[in-house]
């Protein structure tokens, strides 16, 4: 009941928020320099045909009307057409969204497999040498991850693992920045858009392996740089929970250490979850840079190309998707957090 009420309330806000997102995006993109009709037809086209195209694209109408037309089309799944490639934006997005999501989710999985156990270990109150070693490693990691830009780390990895560090190391340990697959590899038939899943569905282990090898460096880059806030938050929360009165008291009652640890972790999980939601938003931006470094044809590359060529519709589609996706992630995070923590009130704004 409490949960249902909360969900209802949040969805009530979600709808105007989504409209606001689409409107901001629309206005911003309309402000981009350049006349799309002229750009589409090229500099040599006669003025009359440019005018005709402008009318056809509703560019001669006032902005609010253009927005309503765009919104109506968007509801019917028509996000416009890229004038550079003459493709439907919605089709491009369907192909490219899974590429970027695959990177982001694999990075998050890597963070949770490696960094979460590390955070719990280093938060431990016992101070034996294993914990100390891990603490020193993670101290260095925290320093490095905060200072190393994602694109730089990507380049460093390429330099060492592909280029062989100017002869210091064997070259091509991992495939270079050539995208999701080698030049001679064929894309598996489109099912979900994820290279790993699609190649498995097609039963093509060779492509699976190639896709996997191509994913290692970009996923590691994202996980390394964007895992740091999650790691730091979880560790400090876990340290706090293990030091808290209730943990000492649970020990004093004689409750099994495993249960004491799980209950402390539950307290630490809430804020960690919230920060994870924010990190997913930053991962979308990070993916833009990392895709650029590794030549991944995902959403990020799509957006950069759109911006460089002043291609309205793709930018609009991408920014709108990114913002709505982030809103949904925030919503999911809030719902899980709400279900986990009985202290959160239904009303009230968070600080």
């Amino acid at each position: 009941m409490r949960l249902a009420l909360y969900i209802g309330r949040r969805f009530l806000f979600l709808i105007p928020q989504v409209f606001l997102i689409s409107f901001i995006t629309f206005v911003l993109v309309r402000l981009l320099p350049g006349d799309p009709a002229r750009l589409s037809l090229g500099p040599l086209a006669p003025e009359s045909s440019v005018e005709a195209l402008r009318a056809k694209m509703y560019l001669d109408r006032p902005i609010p009307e253009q927005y309503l037309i765009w919104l109506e089309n968007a509801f019917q799944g028509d996000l416009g057409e890229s004038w550079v490639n003459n493709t439907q934006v919605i089709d491009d997005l369907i192909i490219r969204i899974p590429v970027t999501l695959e990177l982001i989710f694999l990075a998050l999985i890597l963070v949770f497999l490696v960094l979460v156990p590390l955070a719990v270990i280093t938060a431990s109150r016992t101070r034996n040498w294993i914990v100390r070693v891990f603490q020193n490693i993670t101290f260095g990691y925290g320093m490095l991850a905060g200072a190393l830009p994602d694109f730089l780390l990507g380049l460093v990895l390429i330099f060492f693992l592909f280029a062989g560090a100017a002869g210091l190391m064997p070259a091509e340990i991992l495939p270079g920045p050539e995208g999701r697959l080698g030049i001679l590899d064929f894309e598996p038939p489109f099912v979900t858009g994820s290279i790993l899943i699609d190649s498995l569905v097609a039963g093509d282990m060779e492509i699976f392996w190639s896709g996997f090898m191509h994913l290692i460096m970009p996923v590691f880059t994202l996980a390394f740089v964007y895992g740091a806030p999650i790691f730091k938050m979880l560790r400090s929360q876990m340290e706090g929970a293990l030091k808290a009165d209730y943990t000492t008291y649970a020990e004093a009652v004689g409750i099994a250490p495993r249960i004491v640890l799980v209950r402390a972790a539950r307290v630490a999980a809430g804020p960690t979850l919230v920060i994870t939601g924010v990190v997913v938003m930053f991962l979308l931006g990070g993916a833009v840079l990392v895709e650029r470094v590794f030549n991944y044809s995902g959403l990020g590359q799509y957006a950069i190309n759109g911006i460089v060529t002043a291609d309205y519709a793709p930018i609009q589609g991408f920014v709108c998707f990114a913002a709505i996706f982030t809103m949904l992630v925030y919503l999911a995070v809030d719902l899980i957090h709400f279900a986990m923590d009985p202290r959160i009130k239904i009303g009230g704004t968070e600080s």
Partner: protein
Amino acid sequence: MFWLRIQRTLKTLPKWQLGVLAMFFGWIFLTIFGPWIAPFPTEVAEPTMRLLPPSGAHPFGTDENGIDILSRVLAAPRTDVVIGVVATALSVVIGTPLGVIVALYESRGGAGSTAFAETFMRVLEVIQSFPVFVFAMVLVAVFGGSVTNIIIAIAFVNTPVFVRIVRSDVLSLVQRPFAEAARAAGNREVRIGFRHVLPNALPTVIVQVSVTVGFAILLTAGLSFVGAGVKPPTPELGAMIASGAKYLEIGQWWAAFFPGIALGLIVFSFGVFGEIMTQVMEPRAVRRETDRRREHALETGADVPEVSEAPAVALERTSDPVLAVEHLGVAAADSRQPLLSEIHLALGAGHSMGIVGESGSGKSVLVKSILQLLPPELAVTSGSVRYLDHDLLAMNKGAMRAMRTTQIAAILPNAKSQLNPLTSVGAMLRSALQAHEKISAKDAEVRAIELLEMVGIVDPAQRLSAFPHELSGGMAQRVCLAMALMYRPRLLIADEPTAGLDVTIQRQVLDLTRKLAEDAGTARLLITGDLGIAAHYCDTVAVMQAGRIVEIDETERLFDAPRHPYTRHLLDCVRV
């Protein structure tokens, strides 16, 4: 005050942080003077000198245009750091007043302002849900890639952060007494907000600034890296890395390497500078808890006259004690200063002993060392703790755990903070029961209800699903009491069991504790700062001062004829 804090912080910094601080000022120096001290022109191409490896003349080599990389790296901070700093300053200048205004409006109360606040926060959420990098990229594309526009874009995406933190800070600050006082003095709300409240919110803002500057520099470099930021030939690290990246794969590493190192070091030194600023702004945040406790113990120890006389111990030896503590000493692991020394006490079966003394005298450390719950930074240095014929100090953890609650039970201060906020009363009781016996969840629930009834909680079946924040302090204490006495233990150690409760509730809880414990034949060690409680509920009383027991005697005799000066001092305080 501010300079004093800086001085104090500088003294406590580890050496490497001082080094990084020096480097930070090095970057600031380059930001100001870099372009003038560069040995070669930074924007003039030399096609004959393309991509020369590092050498004497060009220590960092030359780039694809034949320009000296060292010169460009020296000149680049002017671009990156200035953009980062100015953009952050802009976000602060816009975001801070906005945050104050929203908070002031919101704190007026009433449905209108709540709705306004909720709407405002949701709109802010929308702006923040645009991925920062992409949003900045679009803004730069819209308004063009001049340095001014890059600054505006970066300032825009960072402004909501400042609105948020200032708003939440001011919201909590306007309810503080000093703001009330300013209001009572007849100041207008706006003036209170900006003159009285905002200065108190500044430390948080400054800490956030130091984080944001580093982030803004990274953002600048990232934008330039994808070609949506500063355009060549202006020396800028992100663009330099991008132009060098092409040659990385074919072994010409220097063109991307040196700008990369420089960018990493700039962001790193700004980050460390931010951490140092945090310490300057919030000196309390970094001092470790143990330091504070130790200092507190030392300070309070120094206030009163030194432990001047030999302890006055006038008790006959208790035969067959339940609990016997001898020569117990405890110290912080990294210091010689003892927190407890030469503690002796013996508690007979079914008896009750009070331990009194002011805060910081070591009472709670004594409890934790008897219960084997000392935090890792404290260690027992001497003596023994015996329960019946068990040596608790030598006992392994598993055996000790089996005895907890069943034989040795504990009640700790502030019951509400002793209960895990996310564990319901029922789950807590069930896990406590299941820790010591094989019992099904269903039977455990029945037992839990009985236990809550025993401690006088009305409607116990309902309470099982309650969480600690839904309990009153007295109710939480009763839950803890139920857990402490559920196995009729031989020994109950109650540390400030009534701290934070109303006087009437205090009596109820203590009376109940005594009744239940007497029924079960439980010996009690009651730690309290309240001499009245000790007098009323204990057979014997021990007085602690600065980590020692200075006097221990039967209650009546101790109160009628105190022999140690510190005991007299304590009693005088109460009797005034």
